[in-house]
């Protein structure tokens, strides 16, 4: 799976202060750390970028490109910042992150993907919010992708985002997103995909977030999912994705197939992955203590 490093994010206090003060060092440190950790792309999340959107986006892209050759994912809902960010990408073909089925996004974001010949993330969001189940996600994405195709953006350039909600807030939605991932390549041949993986564990105690993210990534990967915006500083996540931990992948797949998998012969680590699969598939009710359940 293609891993898009998530750490340069405006919600992070360090990043927010650095952007405000135009202090390159903290941003470049994060860029280098993620590049060395094995990221394939770097996400630059600048939020709504209300103040000086053009100048901010340009500064951020240039700052990061000074220290890495990785392609960048320009992540903002502000079309002005988006355009400036895409324009500033000189090293590799960027990813526009993101457009959606919302009217304003179709009108202002999607044309930028065509204009700058970028890859583009299209989420299932619509004017009515996040579609509640698989069918409505399909309906939304078919509509938006058809619109993008008409603009001249081929399926191969589109990375569909099913929208992942925190398991602690709505366990059922986690399963809906997975089911959607399963059928995506059948309904839209040639399409790519991505997901905000860490949102899964938002609200979960910090020390337990990793295993949720890693397990879900592996489950998605089984269905040919293309990429994830993720915490690449989690070494186990990168190793798992690289194929260094085949026995964990195997136990996750078995847990997906067998509801009553016998865990008595498994190691503690393997058991934890099995319990996590069980929770993410909605077989047991989520609680923060799911590993002790």
């Amino acid at each position, binding site marked *: 799976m293609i891993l898009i490093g998530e750490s340069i994010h405006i919600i992070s206090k360090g990043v927010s202060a650095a952007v405000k003060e135009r202090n390159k060092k903290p941003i470049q440190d994060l860029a280098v750390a993620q590049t060395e950790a094995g990221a394939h792309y770097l996400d630059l999340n600048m939020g709504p970028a209300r103040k000086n959107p053009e100048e901010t986006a340009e500064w951020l892209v240039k700052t990061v490109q000074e220290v890495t050759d990785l392609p960048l994912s320009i992540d903002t809902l502000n079309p002005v910042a988006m355009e400036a960010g895409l324009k500033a990408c000189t090293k590799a073909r960027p990813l526009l992150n993101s457009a959606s089925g919302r009217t304003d996004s179709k009108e202002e974001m999607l044309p930028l993907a065509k204009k700058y010949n970028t890859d583009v993330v299209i989420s299932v969001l619509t004017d009515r919010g996040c579609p509640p189940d698989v069918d409505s996600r399909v309906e939304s994405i078919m509509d938006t992708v058809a619109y993008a195709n008409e603009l001249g953006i081929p399926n191969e350039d589109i990375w569909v985002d099913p929208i992942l909600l925190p398991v*602690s807030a709505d*366990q059922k939605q986690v399963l809906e997103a997975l089911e959607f991932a399963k059928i995506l390549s059948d309904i839209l041949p040639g399409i790519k995909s991505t997901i905000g993986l860490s949102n899964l564990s938002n609200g979960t105690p910090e020390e337990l977030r990793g295993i949720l993210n890693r397990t879900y990534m592996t489950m998605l990967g089984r269905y040919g999912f293309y990429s994830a915006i993720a915490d690449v500083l989690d070494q186990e996540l990168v190793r798992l994705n690289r194929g260094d931990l085949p026995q964990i992948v195997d136990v996750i797949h078995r847990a997906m197939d067998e509801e009553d998998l016998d865990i008595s012969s498994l190691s503690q680590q393997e058991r934890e992955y099995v319990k996590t699969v069980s929770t993410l598939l909605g*077989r*047991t*009710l*989520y*609680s*923060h*203590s799911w590993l*002790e*359940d």
Partner: protein
Amino acid sequence: MDYKAPVESYSGSVREVTIGQGSKAVKIGGESKLAYNFFDEGSIPNPPRFALEVRDTEPDNWAPWVLEPYKDVVSDPVKWAQKCVEYGAEMVCLRLASTDPVGKDASPKEAAEAVKKVADAVSVPLIVYGSGDDKKDAEVLPEVAATCSGQNLLLGPALKENYEVIAKAAQEHGHTVIAQTPLDINLMKELNIKLSKTFPPERVVIDPLSSGLGYGMEYSFTIMERTKHTGVMFKDAMTQMPIIADLAEECWKTKEAKASKEQGILWESMTALSLLLAGANIVVLRHPETLGLVREILKQE
């Protein structure tokens, strides 16, 4: 063609929990099907039980029509509790309002002695709720547990902040515990898991919080219903505890219940009936006429 009604059978069941000791002991829970699904397989060995509420201090904001049935006894919790039993309560729910640190702030010892008097004076099991202040309850409830050692009170609320000390005292002195979480099924399960590490799960009753009709009752309904679904249908051991619907205060504080006696009794009755349908195993009521009305309706089942 003959019509054959579908019959469900379930794989899980709610734990049977005993409250009270000796001749006072009453069992709750134990059902292996959903509440009032009389058409399905499985059994409901124990009917829901009704408690009437008593306070250890005179209430100052009750509507006159809910105070009226207790007007001669409100200054004496023992007599008040006995009155509840006369009215047909199967349990008495004593609320230690006096211990509230923003009110009278009575000492744990004082409160515990009052509980003991009530417990000794009534022929039914006693539910004891502290003020809900997590720090104060952590002092009051262990004192109550020790003073009433061996009487198997139903003690609470044990919250995520103070469950350890309350469970320890309940364990030592043979009581049952109310595990309370704020209208959230995931947090509810979380507390049950943590509590069960050191405390027997067959001595836990869940209080998911009960909101009154028109004031969020549907949230309580949904959580109670989902709790039973995960426990009875999907065998989740950490949601198989019986449920207490502590709804009286939430009904009687509404402006509707304070507007007229008839409306108040209907408000409390409708809330109680709804939460019974969701699966409540104990219902805490305030007005004796509510108790009569709800029982009469259930008889016509």
